[in-house]
């Protein structure tokens, strides 16, 4: 049997993310990612430009928004109670100070964390009361739960907003992925914790495949497609544990190359995968002398390239371990060839 997504009833995992043509779809509040701000700030930069300039979205962010703290939660320095009240505070700030009802986060762990807290409030009324009480006592703010998808308590991820507007983005694209083989790598915290909150569920998520197909790419499948990149919080954060990260990346890429040696593009929606699936290819090259040469781009970087944003200055592809020029040549995206690879990457 040919296993394609058509075989799978994934309609039950449909989210209802407002497009820019829907009511309220042009006003969004957003939460930044700790990891992207620290290790790949340009990805949020180009996402901002696309959402504001190309989709005309009024994107709002409060100076007083804090991190959701979930790296500390999965890194075992906070409690579930802390996560609930910090989430409630960020929601209250967005609603009271910015006047927004629709919220997305740039980080999949924030998305999962906010979703987890919303589920807890729904399932455990006493925790909802606790959160509202502590929020009031510590900040004076009022408890409010966003209802982004289908008017039920929920938030969404930035890649969901790109997916919802993918046909608009594809209409504006200057380049096409026709003839390019590509595959998605969905962040674990986008789909595995709450499969019902992932666009298309956890087995055949549509969020990135839909975007790739809108730009004309040919999607390939491989055995370890859903294996974790190995970011693993404490596993990547502490260098002595990072063989875990490199091993996971190796397992995935060896599997991809065995199935599709000519696939050189992985699309991601998680900050950790975006950084480590690329960076660990550098480690593997050095340690095992094996090269995979698979470019790992996030949904905003790829959309940016398609829309004609500069690969280096806007999309930040000068910080990648895997050289992006062969992929740019294959797609037909121009860049300054009078400069050397190093000059393109080091402007000062």
């Amino acid at each position: 049997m040919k296993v394609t997504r058509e075989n799978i009833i994934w309609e039950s995992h449909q989210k209802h993310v407002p497009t820019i043509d829907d009511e309220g779809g042009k006003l969004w509040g957003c939460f930044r990612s700790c990891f992207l701000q620290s290790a790949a700030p340009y990805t949020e930069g180009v996402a901002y430009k696309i959402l504001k300039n190309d989709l005309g979205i009024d994107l709002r962010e409060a100076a007083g928004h804090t991190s959701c703290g979930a790296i500390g939660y999965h890194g075992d320095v906070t409690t579930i109670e802390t996560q609930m009240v910090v989430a409630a505070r960020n929601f209250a700030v967005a609603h009271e100070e910015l006047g927004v009802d629709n919220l997305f986060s740039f980080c999949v762990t924030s998305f999962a964390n906010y979703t987890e807290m919303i589920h807890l409030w729904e399932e455990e009324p006493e925790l909802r009361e606790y959160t509202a009480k502590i929020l009031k006592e510590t900040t004076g703010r009022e408890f409010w739960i966003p209802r982004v998808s289908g008017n039920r308590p929920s938030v969404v991820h930035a890649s969901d907003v790109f997916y919802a507007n993918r046909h608009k983005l594809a209409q504006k694209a200057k380049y096409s992925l026709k003839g390019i083989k590509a595959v998605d790598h969905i962040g674990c915290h986008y789909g595995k914790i709450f499969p019902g909150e992932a666009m298309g569920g956890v087995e055949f998520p549509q969020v990135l495949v839909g975007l790739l197909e809108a730009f004309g790419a040919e999607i390939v499948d491989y055995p370890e497609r859903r294996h974790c990149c190995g970011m693993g919080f404490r596993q990547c954060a502490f260098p002595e544990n990072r063989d875990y990260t490199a091993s996971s990346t190796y397992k995935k890429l060896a599997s991809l190359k065995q199935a599709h040696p000519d696939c050189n593009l992985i699309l991601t929606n998680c900050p950790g995968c975006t950084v480590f699936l690329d960076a660990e290819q550098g480690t593997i090259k050095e340690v095992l002398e094996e090269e995979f040469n698979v470019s790992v781009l996030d949904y905003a970087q790829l959309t940016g390239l398609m829309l004609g944003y500069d690969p280096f200055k806007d999309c930040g592809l000068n910080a990648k371990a895997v050289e992006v020029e062969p992929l740019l040549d294959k797609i037909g995206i121009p860049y300054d060839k009078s400069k050397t690879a190093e000059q393109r990457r080091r402007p000062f």
Partner: protein
Amino acid sequence: MTLFETVLGDSDNYFSIFNTAIIFIYMSKLVDELKQDIQYQHGMNACLNCGICTAVCPAAEVYDYSPREVMNICQTEDEEWLIDLLKSDKIWFCGQCYSCKPRCPRGNSTADVILALRRLSVRHGYFAESEKGRQQLFAKRVFGENMLKRGYTLTAENITPEHFPELGENWEYYFEHMKEMREWWDVPMDKENSAGSHRIIPEKDMDELRKIYKATGAMELMEAVEKGMEKKLGSKKEVEKFWDNWVETADSRNYEMKH
């Protein structure tokens, strides 16, 4: 002879009964404490020990780790096994990817059980008994203190070329030109009174965040890390040596444990 010795016979016997009683009360409390954790309640229903979690687990592939074993130990509610688990490296091997969660036919979530176990291990100081557990000092001083100081779990300054050599020479170049590179990419950092990448969060908002951390037990959990490390290493000075070694060499194993 003391009154207790009169009642309970010789002193050896008395101490053995007394210790057993203390250990029993203490360990019963541990199991109860674990079962009170809402995350444990949601993550542990009834495990049939099928092993699907272990089959899909990235950590099980590279470490001496089995989520199935963790679930089994918890389900037995055996106090001694639980303490051994809390003192071991095992609970720290999980990468928190939750690959186990959607696969479990019984709706369990080992990754959530792991979080409950780790907090229990920290609260009771058992984390300091294992090599991977002692890394909790770095988690506390990086993720935890960053939140309290800046409102982010990670900061740009954390991603050093020394600790992240795989990011390569272009990252070294970026790190030397951090401010200019971020402006070149159009994502300037550390701006005040504005939205934006890595902005300075206003002090009134930081105050609210710190109050939340205090009221919800995060501060207590972080303090337990410092205290547990001090107890294990012998003094605050040794804890600083352990930390300095990690910052300088990026490998906690270069610190020689005395016992």
